[in-house]
């Protein structure tokens, strides 16, 4: 037995987060006022991880831990966005959690574990590593949804999420076992090679692919694997919904890239036709169902389903008739879409958190009535987010939709593009309704908005970022394209 010490350098950020999670756990146990200490330590962890990721980023693709682990630009970029999204989510939810006396130490520790899970998913080069990361993320999320343990709705949501999530994990694992049976390896590049050399039984491989896609679709929350989204979004405390609706979408995108593009690219035609069905169904159902919602969290849940469907449209436009030169354009469009979506999602739930206070949950549409009269600046921020989600320029959401549609048209799916824009029109209706409620109606509740200054400032910046990225999307777009270059 020859024991080789692995190269820890590419995984330095992950190791740092692991170490810090222990420190946070201990600090939470042994300090008198854990709230502020734990919060500060969590933000330090994220900043530190970002610094390490930036410092170790070298543009090379390097493997470690017997090729179970890969460090490339796509991973580094997505991880940076994840830290960023988690840090914002923690900041937005701080006063909300304090007001509700939710066990804060546990919340921050779980958030850091979830972050670690996402990091592992993003940098995995092995089907099992992906699975481990996914479970780490999911278990943390189940527990976070149930943090408000006296709330019947939250526990019900957590239970639903757990049961369905476990089923999806089972499907994914089953698919992975089939791939292993046919390809004889679980290393992602190994599987790709096996398929390329036509080793292994194609039927079994395709069968495995179906299950992998199903497991992935659950994590993305696309139709028909979307059932958990509305209930979990509504049932979970708003700060947790904010968490679930932001960074994990990036991890799910990374998982799709690793599994489908890096691992099963030879089967692109097959998984594209599966994803196409999922994407179209999600866009249609997500937008139609969102119209009927009176609860804003639920509405944003359905809108998230349609957004993920839109993002999948980017993934299905990569390979046309065996021609792969569309791939970079298409996948980077999808990546730009998901990053923009995370930014908008953070801002939309951020405004919900801003309006909530001790003993009051702002989540019904009516809670937004007359917001323009109560606070025009944040009404303006929310309006920008809504217009951006509806895909109206000059906001980043327009360019997200634009770049995906561009990829879809380039791939020749004109009718899909037309369907997608018709559905965006339907989507525009419910986003506009929020704007209408804020600007055209009279307020029901004249309580002034009280929120910590750091949250106000960051939420304002978040809104401004949506507008600025809409005016100048080039930098982020080329960053997405550049970071994907090495991974295709």
């Amino acid at each position, binding site marked *: 037995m020859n024991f080789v010490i692995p190269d820890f350098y590419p995984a330095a950020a992950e190791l740092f987060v692991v170490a810090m999670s222990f420190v946070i756990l201990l600090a939470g146990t042994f300090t008198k006022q854990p709230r502020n200490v734990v919060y500060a330590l969590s933000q330090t962890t994220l900043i530190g991880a970002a610094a390490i990721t930036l410092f170790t980023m070298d543009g090379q693709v390097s493997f470690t831990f017997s090729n179970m682990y890969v460090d490339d630009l796509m991973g580094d970029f997505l991880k940076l966005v994840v830290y960023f999204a988690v840090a914002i989510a923690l900041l937005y939810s701080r006063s909300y959690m304090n007001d509700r006396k939710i066990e804060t130490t546990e919340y921050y520790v779980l958030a850091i574990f979830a972050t670690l899970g996402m990091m592992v998913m993003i940098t995995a080069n092995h089907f099992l590593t992906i699975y481990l990361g996914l479970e780490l993320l999911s278990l943390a999320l189940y527990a976070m949804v149930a943090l408000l343990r006296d709330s019947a709705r939250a526990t019900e949501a957590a239970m639903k999420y757990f049961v369905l999530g476990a089923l999806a994990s089972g499907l994914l694992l089953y698919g992975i076992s089939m791939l292993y049976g046919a390809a004889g390896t679980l290393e992602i590049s190994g599987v790709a090679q096996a398929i390329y050399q036509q080793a292994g039984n194609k039927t079994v491989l395709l069968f495995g692919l179906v299950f992998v896609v199903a497991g992935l679709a659950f994590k993305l929350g696309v139709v028909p694997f979307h059932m958990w989204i509305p209930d979990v979004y509504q049932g979970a405390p708003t700060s947790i919904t904010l968490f679930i609706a932001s960074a994990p979408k990036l991890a799910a995108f990374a998982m799709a890239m690793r599994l489908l593009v890096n691992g099963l690219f030879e089967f692109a035609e097959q998984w594209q036709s599966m994803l196409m069905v999922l994407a179209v169904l999600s866009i249609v159902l997500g937008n139609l169902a969102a119209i009927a919602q009176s609860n804003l969290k639920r509405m944003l849940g359905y809108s998230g389903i349609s957004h993920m469907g839109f993002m999948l449209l980017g993934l299905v436009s990569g390979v046309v008739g065996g021609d792969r030169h569309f791939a970079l354009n298409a996948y980077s469009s999808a990546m730009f879409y998901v990053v923009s979506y995370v930014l908008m999602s953070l801002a939309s739930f951020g405004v919900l958190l801003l309006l909530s206070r001790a003993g009051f949950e702002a989540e019904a549409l009516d809670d937004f009535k007359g917001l*323009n009269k109560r606070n*025009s600046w944040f009404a303006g921020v929310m309006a920008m987010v809504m*217009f951006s989600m509806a895909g*109206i*320029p*000059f906001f980043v959401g*327009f*360019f997200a939709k*634009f*770049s995906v*549609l*561009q990829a879809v*048209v*380039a791939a020749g799916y*004109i009718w899909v*593009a*037309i369907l997608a*824009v*018709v559905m*965006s*029109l339907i989507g*525009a*209706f419910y986003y*506009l*309704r929020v*704007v*209408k409620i804020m*600007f*055209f109606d009279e307020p029901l509740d004249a309580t002034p908005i009280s929120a910590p200054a750091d949250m106000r400032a960051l939420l304002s910046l978040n809104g401004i970022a949506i507008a600025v990225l809409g005016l100048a*999307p*080039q930098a982020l*777009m*080329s960053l997405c*394209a550049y970071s994907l270059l090495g991974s295709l």
Partner: protein
Amino acid sequence: MTGIPFLSLAIWVPIVGGLLALASGSDRNASVARFVALFFALAGLAVSIPLYTGFDVTTSSMQFVEAYPWIPRFNINYVLGVDGISVLFVLLNSFITVIVVVAGWEVIQEKVAQYMAAFLIMSGLINGIFSALDGVLFYVFFEASLIPLFIIIGVWGGANRVYAAIKFFLYTLAGSLLMLIALLYLFMESGGSFNILDWHQLKLGMDVQSLIFLAFLVSFAVKVPMFPVHTWLPDAHVEAPTGGSIVLAAIALKLGAYGFLRFALPIAPDASHAFAPLIITLSLIAVIYIGFVALVQTDMKKLVAYSSISHMGFVTLGFFIFNPLGIEGAIVQMISHGFVSAAMFASIGVLYDRMHSRQISDYGGVVNVMPKFAALFMLFAMANSGLPATSGFVGEFMVALGAVKFNFWIGFGAATTLILGAAYTLWMYKRVVFGAVANHHVAELTDINNREFVFLAILAVCVLAMGIYPFPVTEVMHASVNELLKHVAVSKL
């Protein structure tokens, strides 16, 4: 030619002014917002004037061109430029913005800063639409201009404003989304260019041309609006505040027509010819049928709204008979309608501010208490019905003449607008202004104050000047219209 980027200034001066007005804050110091808005509206007009004085009428190529890369990833560029057609609309828009700011001066008391900001930002965006030479830039301005008008109708509008605002937004968005697909398709066909002038040179098959033409048709027909997708306009007009109605009629309706000239005709000329009978039919329906609809309205604003649809039918008719008289007449008609409809809505706004009613039956004998107003309103009503020596006559006459050349019966149908227009406008005028004082509300009316007199008088001067001597307008557009017709005449198959 100087190096000053006048077009960029015409776009960004009002937008920056709007943001400053917005920042000037609450209703406690509303007059700050008003003066900031007036200053930037005048500044926007001031930077637009050199576009006309420095314009070279002998060439049809784009002038005052500015080009910078914007999103190189998709080869999207910030390209601005005006030809003899668009320069007129930039001027009209900057001018109307000043009128709107003055018209809303004392009338708007609630959220003044937001009101003024919305109009200024919209003015900048609309200048962007008229001067964009990049497909995506055009689209972005085109869509973004919906937001301010949506807010204007929804916040400061009448009783049924929410319905009208959402209907307006969704109708226009529905049209423009299909255009986005067409733009993306052209991007692909042209090998990666969003430049509109490149697209003018692009060879396209008949099937493709037809689909692209239809996508543009849906988009611009809603905006014009053409029969049968006109139903949003009366709602929007009736519910919008006076300033909103003015901008909607004077400027926003021109966007669709301008789109036909810039996109549909030169990019898909064969399809344009093939679909011309359809467009001509729809235009004639708009002219005649909507004219009759206007006749039976009991609400003044609705009447003028239907009259706008009827007049815009004249414009689309002028485009699709493909002769210089038709197109030039249609453009003259658009500019003239910009002044006349603005004046009509401003006049109705003057009445509405005093009586809070738009119903014709609530009025009668206004001339007895508001003589100055009645005189100006008379002039505008005459212009709306196309009386010679007012601007309304010039365009209608040119288009009718062009139509007769094209086909006698089409010309005949179009000319009925002169009768119908006179009928509904003058009948409305008679019922509102003449006769005995109808009730004590009318008896208590006060005549227009200096502010109202100034902006109505300026509009009156414009209406008369253009009616008597339209040459400065037609001279500018001549070369560009000929170039456009040359494009349309050559098959691109």
